[in-house]
């Protein structure tokens, strides 16, 4: 986990269940809008992650400047899907602007480390594992 994700995890993991719900809803509300440049791709169904019940579109990019690679994360989650917006929003918050190596090092049991596994239940954890896997793979491909 990078520094920002550790901050988020520390806050979430220490919170009682009701407050975790409030914190997650805050992350969901902070979910950034999809930039116009990606909307045509989203409308064409590109970037769709099929592991989720909710529609999740992910557009990871990597740019290189002065030899340093930077990850840019853009995503869209239409409709009423606060849980996916919260979890994907946390990833964007922590890793937009990070390096590909940082993304590759995101722990696969992130939800357990965030302390929200029990709140979500097993199926939703599997769904999010698909999102995380796609993110890591997409960033690794873009960085190659």
């Amino acid at each position: 986990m990078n520094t920002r994700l550790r901050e988020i995890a520390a806050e979430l993991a220490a919170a009682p269940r009701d407050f975790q719900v409030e914190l997650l809803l805050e992350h969901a509300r902070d979910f950034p809008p999809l930039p116009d440049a990606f909307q045509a791709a989203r409308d064409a169904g590109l970037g769709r992650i099929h592991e989720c019940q909710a529609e999740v579109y992910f557009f990871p990019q990597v740019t290189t400047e002065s030899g340093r690679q930077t990850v840019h994360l853009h995503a869209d989650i239409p409709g009423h899907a606060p849980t996916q917006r919260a979890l994907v929003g946390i990833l964007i918050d922590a890793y937009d602007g990070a390096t590909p190596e940082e993304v590759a090092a995101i722990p696969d049991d992130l939800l357990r480390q965030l302390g929200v596994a029990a709140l979500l239940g097993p199926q939703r954890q599997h769904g999010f594992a698909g999102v995380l896997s796609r993110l890591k793979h997409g960033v690794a491909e873009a960085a190659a």
Partner: protein
Amino acid sequence: MSDAAHPEILVSTDWVAKHLADTDRIRVIESNEDVLLYATGHLHNAVHVDWQTDLQDPDVRDYISQDQFEALCSRLGIRPDTTLVFYGDKSNWWATYAFWTFTMFGHADCRVMDGGRTKWEAEGRTLTTDVPAFESTDYTAQHPEPSIRAFRDDVLAHMNAGGPMVDVRSPAEYIGEISHAPHSPASEPALRAGHIPGASNVPWGRAANADGTFKSRDELEAIYLDEQGLNPSEETITYCRIGERSSHTWFVLRYLLGFDNVRNYDGSWTEWGNLVGAPVEKGVPDNASEIAG
């Protein structure tokens, strides 16, 4: 839908709006795919039941015990004679799943608000974030109906007897294409793709209108009776991937079309597609019209 086989089971958003204050006799229960949705706003006096964290055992792949179910109802202030009204997101997909579960555990008076959250919101009706608290009860379930649940051995026997089954997943899942992308594990993986031999394919959403309500009886009869040739007097089994979408179709067949004996196979494809030796049929059936839509 006034012409449903059991019309009293479906209540309208209007009816619910008029009865929200009647908490002595009625408990409104929201059940969604998304565990945080209730917290963003819900019907006044509605309580939240989550299909995973409230209704499923965290260790064993099964529902909670009868005792835990009774404790849940007690905590929500439900008595055996309380009218329960379920509603939720996704055309009441999860509401019907909770409805099925509560019926199996033995709550007698369960209803569904036609249209669910989608229709309630589309009508501009009020939502609140206030979480109600009701005096707890000492609940005992009166009418358990374990017969509405099919286990894998029931399904095997049913298949061998040529009994009708409805696979409510998407055509791609039914045909046996691998629908998940490379490098991305499916969220509920099955080692084999296809369907249970003899099952017909009617994606669950065909029973729902765009506004979240159920289709009319005529429209439903055209799909399930005329097109698929199902017979309301024949024992029928529904299944999907984990038994939730198929509870929507179970509800349609039992209450809207009046099927006498319909069971939901909650083990569904994540069990069948992983069972050693379980027969699997792939591809389009002889009657290709069965997968239309």
